């Protein structure tokens, strides 16, 4: 079996290099085409009619006026008379028309009579949830009661993190062309290889007759795995319109209402410690909602990272709401767990009169990777200038107070199933093909780097093709498994292809294939550059037959191969200023220290962390979905009052990738989700440190900060 192991760190020529992303220019100049840009000949526009009510029954639906509208090619009722609608935005009907305006006019002409039913759209007050609240997990370990009695300090608090949405710049949707010989499917997805088969199941077409293609995706963050109801609707509209292609993407309002959300978490936490800072006991009562399906939580995951505390008493309640459903959101549950845990521990440190850095360091033994967290805490503290800047809670002088805070994270990674084909042509050109997708993380570029490293070629010599269902299947980009999956499969297929090339040229080089190496565009006897051929000369020996070799990563057994791994740790420290007269929070700096094993491309890895930090800043300072119990509506399904940060709101981001040799040895580990976890907690703790008070909930707007400061004059 060929040796697939990564070359030693000091011998790498393409891996580990700060290569700019291959599609960067295309994307920044608008040449990159997303499927929502697709303008196929004869294109029709699909629009959904969705429920204005949080809970209602359809009494009647009359589509006659809409169907008569010139330009309407098909209209479908999704939920007819008698059907119950359980959230605002639930799909009722779909229309395809020759222009988007006609489709929207038609939707407006569909007359629906509703019987409005009682709803619940707010979970902040658990007492009002009634039968919508269901027990969802309980854990007791050790003897919490005794531990609280023996604790030197006990801290109690309520911590709340609201529902937020994914805010993909490219909304959810697709174009579909249902032709007699098959269906052309242009989704916006994190799961290109498998999504066609899923669509096929819902529309009764064999997977073999569905061709899926996507060059780029404008954000997914965990919300773009299935074809969804609107995928099937789009296909059916195409079929009903004689096979003309239909493009149906959610509008921004629908995107915020029904394309998924990150569930909330409310937690009443009581924690106790010894004088020296050792955490001895944790008790939490929490509740959450992510929509009609409630908001579950793995209660056993608390306290986050410091889970090995001896005494724990945890219970969780899930609340079902009449709102659109939750979906995986860039490290599902982990922001919430990190936020409530780190907030409570920071409060406990304050209660002890202890520097939280010392407190977290004292308790790293309660984590599964004590040495890594110790290193990262110290590194992050150093980069944040902790020893110089940190003062006790509220000790900062003047109306603009500065503070520091810590958040921690953990994540899995590994690599999904992935198959890759490497082709070496007789003219020397190289193609690497797999049915993966680049979520904007730089997957394409990393694939090219792995192949270039393996074949001893410049990165520009590798033609990477992804994003088509005709290519070898690669898994869904979820759980931060893409880089692991594609780097392992690409490494293997490229090693396999190179082996074939070695075999073809070995006779001429007077040795056997095992003694050859590919370095700097040459095939040569190991360590003897004089006995070698240029890459082109070597490939010419192939005559007319190209080399096509496969490589495969099998998730279940991948660790054995030694190429990839799982388990990351991260520490983030925020440096903020709080104007205590206005409650306005400014992030001065967010430091992120992150490990993810062997880093294929440090520049792209850092870029991934920057993006995650920006998301954390948005969530900490601005983002929340605001619902109104009186009307059942989401009041901010727009980018005006559902607020994301702009450049001026973000501050400095300092990223340190933990690329020590011991980390590198572990192999490649996914980075998509890990850096998006700890920032919210870090910022919230920094605000507590600066202002001197714990703000119970995020986002940390003047509305909440001034409330906590007790400066309301009413």
């Amino acid at each position, binding site marked *: 079996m060929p040796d697939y192991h990564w070359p030693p760190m000091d011998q790498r020529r393409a891996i580990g290099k700060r290569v700019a992303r291959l599609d960067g220019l295309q994307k920044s100049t608008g040449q990159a085409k997303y499927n929502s840009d697709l303008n196929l000949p004869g294109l029709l526009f699909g629009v959904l009619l969705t429920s204005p009510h949080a809970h209602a029954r359809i009494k009647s639906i009359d589509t006659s006026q809409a169907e008569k509208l010139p330009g309407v090619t098909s209209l479908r009722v999704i939920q007819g008379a008698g059907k119950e609608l359980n959230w605002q935005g639930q799909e009722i009907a779909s229309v395809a028309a020759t222009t988007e*305006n006609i489709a*929207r*006019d038609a939707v*407006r002409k569909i007359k629906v009579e509703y019987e409005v039913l009682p709803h619940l759209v707010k979970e902040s007050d658990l007492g009002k949830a009634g039968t919508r609240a269901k027990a969802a997990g309980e854990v007791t370990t050790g003897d919490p009661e005794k531990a609280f009695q023996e604790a030197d300090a006990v801290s109690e608090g309520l911590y709340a993190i609201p529902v937020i949405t994914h805010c993909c710049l490219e909304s959810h949707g697709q174009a579909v062309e249902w032709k007699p010989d098959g269906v052309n499917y242009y989704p916006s997805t994190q799961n290109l290889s498998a999504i066609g088969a899923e669509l096929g199941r819902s529309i009764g077409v064999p997977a073999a007759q569905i061709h899926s293609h996507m060059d780029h995706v404008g954000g997914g963050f965990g919300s773009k795995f299935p074809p969804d109801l609107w995928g099937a609707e789009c296909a059916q509209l195409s079929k009903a319109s004689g096979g003309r292609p239909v493009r149906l993407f959610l509008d921004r309002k629908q995107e915020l209402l029904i394309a998924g959300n990150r569930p909330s978490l409310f937690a009443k936490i009581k924690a106790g410690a010894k004088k020296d800072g050792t955490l001895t006991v944790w008790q939490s009562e929490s509740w959450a909602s992510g929509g009609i399906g409630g908001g579950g939580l793995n209660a056993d995951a608390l306290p986050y990272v410091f889970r090995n505390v001896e005494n724990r008493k945890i219970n969780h309640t899930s609340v079902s709401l009449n709102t659109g459903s939750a979906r995986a959101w860039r490290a599902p549950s982990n922001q919430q767990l990190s936020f409530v845990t780190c907030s409570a521990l920071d409060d406990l440190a304050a209660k002890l009169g202890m520097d939280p850095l010392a407190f977290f360091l004292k308790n790293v033994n309660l984590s599964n990777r004590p040495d890594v967290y110790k290193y990262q805490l110290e590194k992050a503290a150093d980069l944040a200038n902790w020893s110089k800047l940190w003062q006790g809670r509220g000790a900062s002088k003047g109306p603009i107070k500065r503070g520091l805070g810590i958040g921690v994270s953990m994540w899995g990674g590994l690599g999904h199933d992935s198959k890759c084909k490497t082709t070496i042509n007789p003219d020397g050109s190289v193609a690497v093909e797999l049915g993966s997708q680049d979520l904007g993380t730089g997957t394409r570029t990393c694939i090219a780097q792995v192949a270039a490293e393996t074949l001893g070629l410049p990165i520009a010599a590798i033609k990477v093709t992804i994003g088509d269902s005709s290519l070898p299947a690669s898994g869904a980009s979820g759980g931060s498994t893409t880089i692991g999956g594609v780097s392992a499969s690409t490494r293997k297929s490229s090693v396999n292809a190179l082996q074939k090339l070695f075999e073809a040229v070995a006779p001429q080089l007077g040795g056997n294939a095992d003694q050859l190496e590919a370095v700097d565009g040459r095939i040569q006897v190991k360590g003897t550059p004089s006995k070698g051929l240029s890459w082109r000369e070597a490939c010419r020996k192939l005559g007319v037959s190209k080399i096509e070799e496969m490589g495969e990563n099998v998730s279940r057994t991948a660790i054995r191969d030694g190429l990839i791994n799982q388990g990351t740790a991260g520490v983030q420290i925020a440096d903020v200023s709080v104007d205590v*007269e*206005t*409650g*306005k929070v400014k992030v001065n700096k967010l430091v992120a220290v992150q490990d993810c094993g062997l880093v294929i491309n440090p520049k792209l890895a850092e870029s991934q962390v920057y993006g995650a930090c920006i998301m954390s800043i948005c969530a900490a*300072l*601005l983002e929340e979905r*605001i*619902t*109104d*119990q*009186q*009307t059942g*509506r989401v*009041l*901010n399904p727009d980018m*005006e*009052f559902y*607020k994301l*940060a*702009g*450049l*001026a*709101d973000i501050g400095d981001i300092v990223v340190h990738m933990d690329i020590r040799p011991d980390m590198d040895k572990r192999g490649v580990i996914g980075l998509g989700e890990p850096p998006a976890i700890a920032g919210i907690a870090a910022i919230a703790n920094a605000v507590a440190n600066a202002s001197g008070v714990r703000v119970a909930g995020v986002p940390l*707007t*003047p*509305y909440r900060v*001034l*409330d906590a400061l007790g*400066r*309301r*004059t*009413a």
Partner: protein
Amino acid sequence: MQAFEYANPATLAEALKSLGSSWDEAQVLAGGTDIISLMKDDVAAPKRLVNIKNVKELGGIAPHAGGLRIGATATFDELATNAAVRTYPAIRTAVLGVASPQIRNMGTAGGDLCQRPRCWYYRAGFGLLATKDGQPLVPNGENRYHAIFGGGPAYFVSPSSLGPALIALGAKLTLESASDKRTVDAAKFFLAPGSETEREIDLKPNEIVTGILLPAAAGEKSATYEIREREMLDWPLVTASVALKISGGKVSSARVVLGHVAPMPWVAVAAEQYLLGKAISEATAEEAGAEAVKGAQPLSQNAYKVQLAKVAVKRALLAAAGKA
């Protein structure tokens, strides 16, 4: 958005003729930053839009009677880059507070005065007074951004960026219809509607705001202080615009106007009176802030805006007096 007729007049006379006797009949299109979104959200559905950007006499910023005339279609970008506007710091700061180049490039001075409230109940179709089944939604609802002064039956806040500064500076607005011309004080242009059929500004469907007349800037110290949730384009939570005349180190005349706290820009009369005869210091500015918020009637979620209003007044006064 409902289909509509598009009128593209080249003269004011033509534009005025294209208007109708009701808002459903015709509305004015200038920058389009508000009317288009209202139409997309089906909150407004005029049969005709009358584009006034090609009406030359409605544009420009020019000296006028010792002060300045700002044409209704002067964009925020023009206001931001105009040298004469710099002599009115209260206006300049308000203009720069509209923090997106795209909006500054398109949005106009007249449009800023005539734009509709951002109240989320209004924008979701529950009417200007935000009611459901005859009951007001704001008092028991999500009112963190709503009025702390002058609430009931309207609880929205005036969204105008220029309004408070114009009132502080004693500006007048010129309005024209096909049959009439009138001039109103900026302070009297904004109204609190008492019913769903009333508007929040003193403008009739057949009228156009043609311009803003500013008195001479000389001798007046002005400033605007704005507090908003994010630095990127955002609606202010609270603004305060102040204009002071100071003689012998003491305030001889003061205007203090709060924005985004009431259905109209809110003149803080008590603060104005308090300031007369005082020197501006940290202490008097603070006290003026406290005077400004006396009588505030916050709703269930927006008491924090009282504190913001107090601080905004204080900081605006210190900025105007050069002590910030």
